[in-house]
């Protein structure tokens, strides 16, 4: 069967046998013969728009110039990709493209490779980049399934646009068209004003399937359901089709896994303070006002700029401000100190000094350099020439009052050391945002029956003596879910929590609290009031004896049964009725 479907042909005097339905371009590729293309992409239906892939088809009596990307192979075909006629036609087509889109770099590059210096044809618009390859249109239709853009008009007016050139309702803002465009004619910014779905990233586009960060554990990509085109239109699945291991499954569902465990360590972490809550700082309004984590991404060698510190316009900043205590030590948001911000701000200042020539300003309330070697680092920064201004920034605006402030971000701050309000123009401002408990902290606390402090961080059993345990046995705390803390402190607490959890698990036995209930057999009338009251089902009714019995292993010693016992048969060890009566008498003695 498969033998019948094989087709033999000759390309550049080399014979090859391929499956039926293969295109000439694919067959040539199998022979390592390079045919240049501009409008071809393996995931799209061929369209033969650029006509750069033309080849010569030779038959007995004539030769013909055909496009190789969309012509299927036929039995006994003889193809020349490098004949005079083929190359001539290709050069001519490239010259036509050079006239059509003089600003398209890929065309210029291809022309150079082919030895074409300039086009013979008239150039209509020297700024034009679009080569009308239709990759964007095909992507939008075939891959995304949105059909938001299409070719409009005809002849020399032909161009790509949304219906009537208006913002299209059909556009889902996936930016796939910008991604696929070979000439950068459609840019991310063109689509940005519309419904961009990559809301997470402000520092350039990211993909819907990605590894969260380069240091991620496990190092596995995930699909951002909100950004993924498949979940918008039901189409695409490009990643799944390309994955050789067939590891991508769009139909995967969340599953709940039940585990039997004896101890639990809570390490649920923190949430970054949402800087847009402080409207005076303009986060979200000004492109160059970024948060600490965004700067961290920017300065990362695997980040969007390859580790270069650049403003939104692509230029290196000349003055950078770092604002401390954003969302911390502020009655309006969080009263507590987030502890880590001073030190990471200093690190930013140091990185900025290392990588740029910018003037760096640190706006602080108090420098809190509490850790080992931290104060020394602060002194190093002072020597490096970072300008430290003591005072809380009141406003970041773009309203210029003088010529030198034009086009800059103006930081208004009261410099409390010189006693004056200053306006300092900046190119970039980094907000050192504080740490907040994650949103569902109260919910988690309920699940594990532990308490939260007023700012909803988890409450430890004792601030000094039991900083990683909780009031519930077997539940331990590690990291910033308990309070904001830096990495060394988190590691130390996590180690302690792990050791305590292991100590419990390793022993295999559990020490019971001595405070449990006991029932006096002689007094118990067997009324069973206590049996229904016990929240731990620790009391059972002994039918033979006609009395209720406490299971010491289950009893937690709350004493609910004791206070309900009508005959006083149930008593709580260490909290007997008589003991408490004596206590009452004692404290009320005149």
């Amino acid at each position, binding site marked *: 069967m498969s033998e019948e479907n094989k087709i033999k042909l000759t390309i550049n005097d080399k014979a090859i046998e391929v499956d039926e339905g293969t295109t000439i371009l694919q067959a040539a590729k199998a022979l390592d013969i390079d045919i240049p293309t501009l409008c071809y992409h393996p995931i799209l239906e061929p369209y033969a728009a650029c006509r750069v892939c033309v080849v010569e088809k030779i038959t007995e009596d004539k030769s013909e110039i055909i496009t190789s990307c969309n012509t299927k192979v036929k039995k006994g075909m003889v193809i020349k990709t490098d004949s005079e006629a083929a190359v001539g036609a290709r050069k001519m087509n490239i010259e036509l493209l050079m006239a059509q889109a003089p600003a398209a770099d890929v065309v210029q590059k291809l022309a150079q490779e082919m030895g074409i210096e300039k086009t013979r044809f008239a150039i209509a618009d020297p700024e034009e980049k679009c080569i009308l390859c239709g990759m964007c249109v095909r992507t939008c239709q075939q891959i995304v399934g949105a059909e938001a853009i299409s070719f409009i008009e005809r002849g020399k007016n032909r161009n790509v646009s949304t219906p009537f050139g208006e913002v299209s309702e059909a556009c889902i803002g996936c930016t796939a068209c910008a991604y696929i465009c070979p000439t950068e004619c459609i840019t991310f910014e063109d689509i940005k004003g519309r419904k961009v779905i990559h809301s997470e990233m402000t520092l350039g586009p990211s993909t819907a399937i990605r590894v969260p960060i380069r240091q991620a554990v496990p190092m596995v990509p995930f699909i951002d359901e909100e950004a993924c085109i498949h979940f918008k239109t039901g189409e695409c699945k490009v990643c799944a089709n390309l994955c050789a291991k067939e590891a991508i499954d769009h139909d995967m569902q969340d599953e709940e896994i039940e585990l039997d465990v004896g101890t639990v360590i809570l390490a649920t972490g923190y949430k970054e303070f949402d800087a847009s809550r402080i409207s005076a700082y303009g986060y979200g309004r000004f492109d160059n006002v970024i948060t600490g984590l965004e700067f961290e991404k920017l300065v990362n060698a695997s980040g969007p700029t390859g580790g270069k510190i650049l403003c939104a316009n692509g230029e290196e900043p000349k003055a950078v401000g770092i604002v401390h205590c954003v969302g911390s030590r502020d009655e309006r948001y969080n009263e507590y100190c987030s502890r880590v911000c001073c030190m990471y701000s200093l690190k930013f200042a140091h990185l900025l000094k290392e990588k740029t020539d910018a003037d760096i300003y640190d706006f602080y309330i108090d420098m809190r350099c509490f850790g080992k070697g931290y104060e020394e680092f602060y002194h190093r920064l002072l020597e490096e020439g970072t300008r430290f201004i003591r005072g809380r920034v009141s406003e970041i605006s773009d309203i210029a009052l003088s010529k030198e402030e034009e086009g800059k971000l103006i930081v208004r701050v009261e410099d409390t050391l010189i006693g004056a309000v200053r306006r300092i123009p900046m190119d970039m401002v980094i907000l050192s945002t504080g740490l907040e408990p994650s949103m569902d902290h109260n919910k988690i606390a*309920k699940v594990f*029956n532990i*308490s*939260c*402090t*007023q700012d909803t961080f988890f*409450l430890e059993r004792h*601030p000094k003596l039991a900083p990683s345990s909780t*009031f*519930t046995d077997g539940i331990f705390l590690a990291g910033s879910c308990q309070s904001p803390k830096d990495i060394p402190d988190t590691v130390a607490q996590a180690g302690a929590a792990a050791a305590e959890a292991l100590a419990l698990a390793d022993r295999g036995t559990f020490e019971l609290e001595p*405070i449990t209930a006991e029932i006096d057999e002689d007094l118990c009338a067997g009324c069973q009031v206590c049996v229904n*009251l016990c*929240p*731990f089902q620790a009391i059972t009714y002994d039918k033979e004896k006609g009395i209720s019995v406490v299971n010491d292993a289950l009893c*937690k*010693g*709350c*004493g*609910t049964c*004791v*206070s*309900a016992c009508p005959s006083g048969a149930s008593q*709580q060890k260490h*909290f007997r*009725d008589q003991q*408490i*009566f004596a*206590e*009452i*008498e004692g*404290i*009320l003695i*005149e």
Partner: protein
Amino acid sequence: MSNEAFEPKLVGFLCTWCSYTGADLAGTARMAYAPNMRIIRVMCSGRVDPQFVLKAFKEGADGVLISGCHPGDCHYKEGNYNALRRHRLLSKMLEQFGIEKERFRLEWVSAAEGAKFQNVCNEFTEQIREMGPLSWNGGKNE
């Protein structure tokens, strides 16, 4: 006895997990509160037997406070709900005895609420000071 010189005697039954820890926090945080509150620790607010409250009034307390974990936060799942039910019933009974129900309070104070405990103590003391000393028939015969 004039009300100005009157210092009320208050008894507070605090659950060990939330309110007692909250009171402890008020202490470690050096929050001063009225010294009239005399605290008895119980494992759970559900342990507070109505007899304890009656005993406290009998021994000369002018007010009694039961304080437990916030609803849903009980270390023993539902002891504070039992306390709530008993408080309702006992308040009615106290009124029949001629004890104003304002003298018997139930509060929810969590382990983190040192400041709330401070407030509760100060407020309760002030309230009882205004009401005057406990007399078994509501002060009508005096």
